[in-house]
């Protein structure tokens, strides 16, 4: 086991689906060199097929002490070929060539944006940001025949050694979250590196530090002062995604509340429109208790009472969302 585990909590009640994290990540790490199709971090609309398409049905993870079979997503059908355009022909050459993807898009990382499930006016959706979970029991690591995947002692970040990797893609199949991508140009598999160069300098990950919804907390799991420990272990309102895969993810989610449904006469019922069953499917049975705690604490605030939990989630000071155990000053 690693000595310490850096972990993240994402508050889904604060995520607005703006994709700032997605592009903060992409513009830093993956906008070139065969990585165009890959989103180490992305935000998908739930319920939905997600990205890569149907990743929840693609297997991977653990069944007891055994790795479950997994399927490799296909580039065109499941990830979507990243649209490319001929700006020069459209803007700087004669003829009326529109700015059109050279290959029509049939699927993409956000194809079903804002769709969700259910029928108007009781439909529902919410946003789920996803990145590598830097699992405590990483299936990818176990699956790699090259031992190219390692988990760092000092912070538990799971990395693929780009010199050892030969692109066999067992890790891609083994990851139940399908958060490892094969770079066809480099011939290697790549994934979220939890921004270790930033973390090493005490700066939070690009996705977390730039999150304008102010939804992400980052701290070491064993840091009792950190928001992650308090939200995960004390308040128990932050839960891992699909815990049943057995990889022990280290990205946790505060589950989403939702507006009331309407009855047949158009009156609000007071019942949240996201069915509990669906949230149980994603976050396990503990989600019901987590939602109850959230509702209880919000009600306290409404009555003018104090709530340490709500204050932590509100995060008055941005700096309080992060405890990386190093000086927080940004390098200049």
């Amino acid at each position: 086991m690693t000595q310490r585990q850096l972990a993240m909590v994402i508050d889904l009640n604060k995520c607005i689906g703006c994709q700032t994290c997605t592009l903060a990540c992409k513009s830093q790490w993956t906008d070139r060199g065969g990585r165009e199709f890959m989103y180490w971090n992305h935000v998908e609309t739930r319920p939905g097929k997600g990205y890569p398409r149907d990743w929840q049905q693609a297997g991977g993870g653990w069944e007891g002490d055994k790795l479950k079979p997994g399927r490799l997503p296909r580039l065109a059908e499941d990830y979507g070929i990243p649209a490319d355009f001929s700006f020069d022909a459209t803007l700087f050459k004669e003829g009326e060539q529109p700015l059109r993807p050279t290959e029509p898009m049939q699927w993409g990382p956000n194809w079903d944006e804002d769709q969700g499930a259910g029928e108007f006016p009781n439909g529902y959706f919410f946003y789920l940001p996803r990145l590598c979970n830097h699992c405590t029991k990483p299936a990818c690591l176990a699956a790699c025949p090259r031992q190219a995947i390692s988990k760092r002692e000092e912070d538990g970040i799971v990395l693929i050694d780009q010199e050892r990797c030969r692109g066999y893609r067992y890790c891609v199949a083994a990851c139940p979250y399908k958060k490892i991508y094969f770079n066809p140009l480099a011939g290697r598999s790549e994934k979220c590196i939890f921004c270790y160069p930033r973390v090493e300098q005490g700066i939070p990950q690009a996705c977390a530090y730039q999150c304008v919804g102010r939804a992400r907390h980052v701290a070491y799991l064993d840091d009792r002062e950190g928001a992650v420990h308090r939200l995960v272990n004390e308040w128990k309102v932050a839960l891992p995604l699909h815990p049943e895969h057995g990889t022990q993810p280290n990205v946790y989610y505060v589950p989403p509340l939702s507006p009331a449904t309407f009855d047949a006469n158009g009156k609000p019922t007071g019942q949240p429109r996201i069915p509990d069953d669906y949230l149980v499917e994603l976050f396990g049975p503990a989600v019901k208790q987590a939602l109850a705690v959230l509702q209880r604490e919000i009600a306290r605030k409404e009555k003018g009472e104090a709530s340490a939990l709500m204050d932590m989630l509100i995060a008055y000071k941005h700096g309080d969302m992060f405890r990386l155990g190093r000086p927080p000053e940004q390098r200049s």
Partner: protein
Amino acid sequence: MKASRREFLKATGASSLSLMLGGTYSLRVLAQSQDAMVQHEYSGWENFHRNQWSWDKKTRGAHLINCTGACPHNVYTKDGVVLREEASKDIAPMPGLPEYNPRGCNKGVCGVDYQYGPHRIKYPLIRVGERGEGKWRRASWDEALEMIADKIVDTIKNEAPDCISVFSPVPAVAPVSFAAGHRFAHYIGAHTHTFFDWYGDHPTGQTQTCGVQGDSCETADWFNAKFIILWGANPSITRIPDAHYLSEASLNGTKIVSISPDYNASSIKADQWLHLKPGTDGALGMAMAYVIIKEKLFDVHGVKEQTDLPYLVRKDNQRFLRESDVVANGSTGKFYAWDAKTGKAVIMKGCWGDEPAQKGPPVAFMGRNTNTFPKGYIDLGDLDPALEGTYKIQLKDGSSVEVQPVFDILKTRIMKQNTPEAAAAVTGIPAKVIVQLAKDYATAKPAMIISGGGTNHWYYSDVLLRVFHLLSALTASEGKNGGGLQHYIGQWKPTFLPGLAALAWPETPAKQRFCQTTIWTYVHAEVNDEMLNSNIDTNKYLRKSIATKQMPLLPANGRDPKVFIVYRGNYLNQAKGQKYVLRNLWPKLELIVDINIRMDSTALYSDIVLPSAHWYEKTDLNVTMEHTSINMTEPAIKPMWESRTDWQIFQALAKKVEESARRKKFERYNDEQFKWVRDLTNLWNQMTMDGKLADDEAACQFILDTAPQTKGITMAMLRDKPQRFKGNWTSPMQEGVPYTPFKNYVVDKKPWPTLTGRQQFYFDHDTFFDMGLELPVYKGPINADKFPLRFNTPHSRYAIHSTFKDNVQMLRLQRGGPSVEMAPADAKARGINDNDWVEVWNDHGKVICRVKVRKGEQSGRVSMWHTPELYMDLIEGSSQSVCPVRISPTHLVGNYGHLVFRPNYYGPGGTQRDSRVEVKRYIGATPMPL
């Protein structure tokens, strides 16, 4: 370690490369590999990513586009190449409130894409093909500027200076760039354009009610509300850096109700979503007023002191009772209320005809300057104005009339017309839900209405905003932190306006020609608005307004515009009535010049295109109404290719006009309208104040020094960190307190800058009577287009108007191009499947694009994210093809107290969303893969 690796491979049989991993992988294997990991020595590859996250230069950056974010960023550069940007997170926090940091968005982290992207304009270009075709030849700066200068001089000489038209919007985001072309126009005599009204963003109803161009709280104040109605506002998409205040307020116990026809990214965060039928918001609002009045939930003192509702109206002619009716030589600008204590009609203090001892200078964004009235001036004191009853008044001719307070008239109408049951039938929201909403809103203190584009782009948006204001006034919510009507649409607030004006129009705005862009477009593009279908003759009102100089039309004397210089704006792409603009206006323009960082649609349809410096290649300021800190940008690198800053481009053009004027022996001309002998050979000195403002940064500092709101702030201070304004528009700046408007009137009790000196709900003006708009009332959406589906054009999370529409990263997170969204039932009824090509049309034009069938969209309406570039993946047209320019007659009023034309203060908008269309599956040839 090597041994364990061999064992690992053997144990797993991995060499078979079977990717369907079976049970051969076990915890044992995991344990083995973890052992291996412990022993693993990090190899050099990790330095690859460490090197990727390194830089040798950090500069200030802002995104100088038509965005309300004003998000301070750092820009990181390495070896002379700009790598990326990141929110600088250094806006000072306020106690007890979540801080503004980080401010940014998905587009903001891709700002560098326009610097190095394929859209960039590198050199001056001169068109050699057809307009819009994209066939160019590279030109030198000298050649391009000489062509433009010669045409300018010829046009002044042979036509008139007002045949030259300069369009550049939104000064708040880049005031020096904005001022460049305006200052140039100012000295040559050309006219410039309004934009806030033209974009449909102007809260006309607020100007009517409050006598200000518009004002809203900074978004940190949302957190102070106890109850928030998101009314036609979708901040999760359109105000990305501010939306966190809603979720944080919610976690803090604030109730949020989202009123929107569709279930959108902000509705999902609300406690309750109310899906009314599109355009029926006014019916809901008036029914809420019904409940608030009927249940006596309104603030009686606030209504009596802060509104014109106690003012007396003559029953014989429906006009306000004026002093001139009662007293010989009385003022037409003084109005009465009935004092219940003394049983007498008394003149209310602070009306238009009431002058302060020391008259303040005119203020561009206010109907009149009431700042020099003493504090407490409109305090009621012992006065108790009656809200109801009929009274008899003796007029100066000895006759008598019956009078009645505005409130009484309004209440009678509301009780008759606006029952919750009636509203339920119109809106589709059950009466009981309306009643509860009204009670919740009226009893929560403070309560805030946040409105947005969804309620501001209708033909009758002005009266809809007056309905919102009525709710806000009844509950005495204005001028209080956490309360009020707060509208967010448009980037309209250059808080340092006096400094900006001094730079843009140095001889004062009074000596600058401004056209009203909506009227300019409507007339010169010869738009058919089809409003006769709704029995409204726009031209009748328009002709009168222009003839009586209530609103301007330029060029004067029936001339056509000849030269059009557009920069920092995408006029053509954003133009409502786009079909008419291309067909009728464009051919009148003999020279179209576009100055731009990228080839947008207006640039593509221009004759000469000049390359402008990117935001990270120049120095400028950047502010917004959404927070109160000033932000700046500075060069990370020198302007790329042959680009120059706008400030330098117009200086260079000024020099070329000097040369041309000399060459053509047309050095001076007499501008009769302003009695101004203009010297075309001294332009550069005028542009730069004899060289003192030649430098971009000097111009920035000039603005800061000249505006009282920023005096004392230096560029060096802004480089260090964003600095908060020292003053503001209608409330003082208070340390540690978020800005919210109207405290000058509500707290300090100075007169509101309206005709009545109060929040004004009654308009005794012919046009308002004609239109049935003398009081707040529900006016439904118009049905002038005889088509079945309403056409909604909301703003996208992936673009700021047209900017970033063509960004590759944004397109990959969508579907690669524009689409129209429709409800499953509407699609099914038309045999349309998701991602099909569809034809959307009405009598104004047609757009052919892809469709997205969206579950959250309400049946009976289609939505198209507004204004994709004309050259995007569309078979025909764009979102503006089916939108005409529709002018509301009440917006043309310019002769009624605080209702006068001033650029961006008051004027017609053009009603973006009151169009109707039909949609069918497109069965023509669809594009093949390229």
